[in-house]
């Protein structure tokens, strides 16, 4: 009679309870793995952004104020030898929407020459870059809008701007990027936008934000300070911040969903700990006599302790697998894509989240087993046999 056999028998003895516990464990675990995946995605994006060493320069008052086009030359002038910055890319908000749809895409007009350098993570091939430089109407699109509107490379699309003077422009999609960080974006050339604006006599070349690709973290810090100092006391005072600080403004403004998910995950851990603990207490209480018999026939206290612990851990593992595996599989095949939150276009379960979930479940199993197992260990054989019988 092996220990595994005993464990299996114990779990099988009260099948109803095992099933109920497993389900009560699995459901919150499914919530947990989704919530953690979501948070993990934000962490991963933040790390990736940090690695890109980009600084954003926008108007101090608000992002919707424009900065003069010429600021790019001034920023480049801070480092003529190019020892600290690689390139500066000016961007202007277009806020285009597909005609007859309500929501504006994150569509930005970017400086054609420096865009491929500043957004090197988009993995533009030399051919892509050549096409982008040659075709004035070129557009580079993330997976999000491409999936929503079923766009293909080479397709011609029309977007209507939601900002004055509400231009309607057509674009040629030259690349659909699967880069996770840029999934909800629509980039096109700023010279195309500025020329089209000139045709309707709208005011001249301006940007909402300049993104600067830096060469080191030190360079980033020094440039950040220098740019804001350079523009101080001019009508166009700037605020320079790194990409994560910039994104954080939006995350906060959108109700701090990652924070909410973290709290949710913590509550779930609390719940599963209680559920598992409850079951182990019940099953210990009902088996006091049996455990006493075990001890009477010569099982050592540590052995009895480990039997209970093993049962608790096993139950937790089964419960968590039941919660995590179906959720992960479901999201793998049917990712939730209608959810466009900041940089995130789809919720997928990341391997990291699975590992974290299973580890948490294991810990919860250990924790839930400790008290009953400790009591079993300290059980006074004679008393227990007498009391229950």
């Amino acid at each position, binding site marked *: 009679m092996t220990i595994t056999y005993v464990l299996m028998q114990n779990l099988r003895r009260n099948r*109803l*309870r095992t099933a*109920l*516990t497993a*389900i*009560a*464990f699995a*459901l*919150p675990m*499914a*919530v947990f793995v*989704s*919530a953690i995946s979501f948070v993990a995605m934000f962490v991963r994006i933040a790390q990736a952004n940090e690695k890109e060493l980009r600084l954003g320069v926008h108007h*101090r*008052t*608000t992002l*919707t*104020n424009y900065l003069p086009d010429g600021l790019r030359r001034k920023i480049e002038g801070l480092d003529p030898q190019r020892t600290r910055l690689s390139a500066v890319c000016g961007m202007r908000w277009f*806020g285009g*929407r597909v005609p007859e749809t*309500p*929501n*504006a895409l994150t569509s930005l007009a970017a400086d054609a020459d420096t865009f491929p350098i500043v957004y090197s993570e988009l993995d533009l091939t030399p051919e892509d870059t050549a096409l982008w430089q040659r075709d004035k109407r070129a557009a580079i699109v993330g997976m999000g809008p491409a999936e929503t509107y079923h766009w293909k490379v080479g397709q011609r699309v029309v977007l*209507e*701007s*939601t*900002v*004055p003077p*509400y231009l309607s422009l057509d674009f040629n999609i030259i690349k659909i990027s699967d880069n996770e960080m840029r999934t909800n974006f629509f980039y096109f050339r700023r010279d195309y936008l500025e020329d089209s604006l000139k045709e309707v006599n709208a005011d001249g070349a301006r940007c909402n934000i300049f993104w600067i690709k830096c060469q080191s973290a030190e360079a980033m810090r020094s440039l950040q300070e220098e740019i804001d100092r350079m523009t101080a006391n*001019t*009508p*166009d*005072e700037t605020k320079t911040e790194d990409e994560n600080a910039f994104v*954080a*403004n*939006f995350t*906060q*403004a*959108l*109700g*701090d*969903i990652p924070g*909410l998910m973290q709290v*949710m995950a913590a*509550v*779930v851990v*609390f*719940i599963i700990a*209680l*559920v598992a*603990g*409850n*079951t182990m*207490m*019940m099953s210990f209480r*009902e088996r006091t006599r049996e455990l006493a018999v075990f001890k009477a026939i010569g099982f050592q206290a540590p052995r009895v302790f480990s039997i209970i612990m093993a049962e608790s851990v096993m139950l937790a593992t089964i419960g968590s697998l039941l919660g995590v595996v179906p959720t992960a599989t479901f999201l793998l095949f049917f990712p939730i894509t*209608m*959810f466009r*939150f900041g940089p995130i276009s789809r919720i997928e379960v990341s391997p990291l989240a699975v590992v974290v979930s299973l580890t948490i479940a294991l810990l919860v199993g250990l924790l839930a087993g400790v008290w009953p197992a400790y009591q079993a260990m300290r059980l006074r054989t004679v008393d227990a046999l007498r009391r229950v019988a």
Partner: protein
Amino acid sequence: MALPFSYHWRNLLVRKTTTGLNILVVAAVVGVFCWLIGFAGALHSSLATASDSRKLIVLKSGATSESNSAIRTDEYNKLNQIAEVERLPGSGAPLISPEMIVQVQLPRVRDQGTTRANVGVRGVTETALQVHRNIKVLGRSFAPGAQEVIAGVSAAKQFGGLEIGETIHLGYASDRPYRIVGYFSAAGGPLESEIWGYLPSLMNAYNRAMYSSASMLLQPGAAAEPVITQINGPAIQLKAQTEAQYWSEQAKNIRIYLNITYVLVAIMSLAAIFSIANTMFSSVAGRTREIAMLRTIGFSGVQILTGFLLEAVMLSLLGAVMGCLGCAAWLATVGRTKDMFGATTFTSLAFEIQLTPMIILAALGCVALVGAVGALFPAWRAARVQVVTALREA
């Protein structure tokens, strides 16, 4: 005669640990539930109060919100031809309010200014107070000639630097000092998250020659539809919406997040059902003999079934009370203030999560249901205990 109440009460007390653990499970679920419902409710009520059916909001066609709309003065003047507009008694001036909205970044009070929110600054004229009928100026309003503004009560509470007497810097280059001279309320509506000042002064400060939008008050009894058609039509070519339409459009993105959190809460409630069922099953199993005794002395199966249900409901309600208290404590310590972007306004809507009696009632109701569902099968089993076998066996 039903089983005495104290019998069930004591049964819960006897199994202290199990009862306690279950109460905590329910409490955790209810706590999250209350917070989420409070969040959704606060958001909803703030948007719902912004629905004066006589008020229209006019934007440039093509614009999706006031923030990205720009109306020229000549376009604005065309609105004067609409006959259904309410007129000021005496002068007969139409109640159309030209408005300009811009944003200013102000620190959030809730995180001591670590992050900043985009707060809407609205330039208005005297007409605005007549058109937006739910606005109440608390204290003094801005004087047209002076660099003065008034702050909405939600904005004043959640964003830094908006105390009466303080000065904020507005204008395109944030270089014009404006003094806060008063507050205003808007019956809890979204306008409470804004700062209001005198339109010509603010337009000058922001180098703007165009209005963002116009709000108009229709005569009592006038239908909104024909006016909207007239404004959208060839004679005026602007875009009009009722106030309710406008705000429900702005809150669209927020609803998706709410739906997702609802799903998560539903899953956790299901887990609570299973957990309660588990406990009740074990409770029934442990008391088989006792139940047989009760049957022997004349209690019916139905009475025993209701008894067990009652026990579970009692347990859940205890958990619910703890959950509500927990949620209230969380709101009191961590904070109840939240703000959220509209879909396209680019300005923050500030609101406060309140644990209203309605939410508490809803939580208690749902939880009683959860307890009853969880206990249904165990109680059914208890009611069907075979008296003779049970007495002999145990």
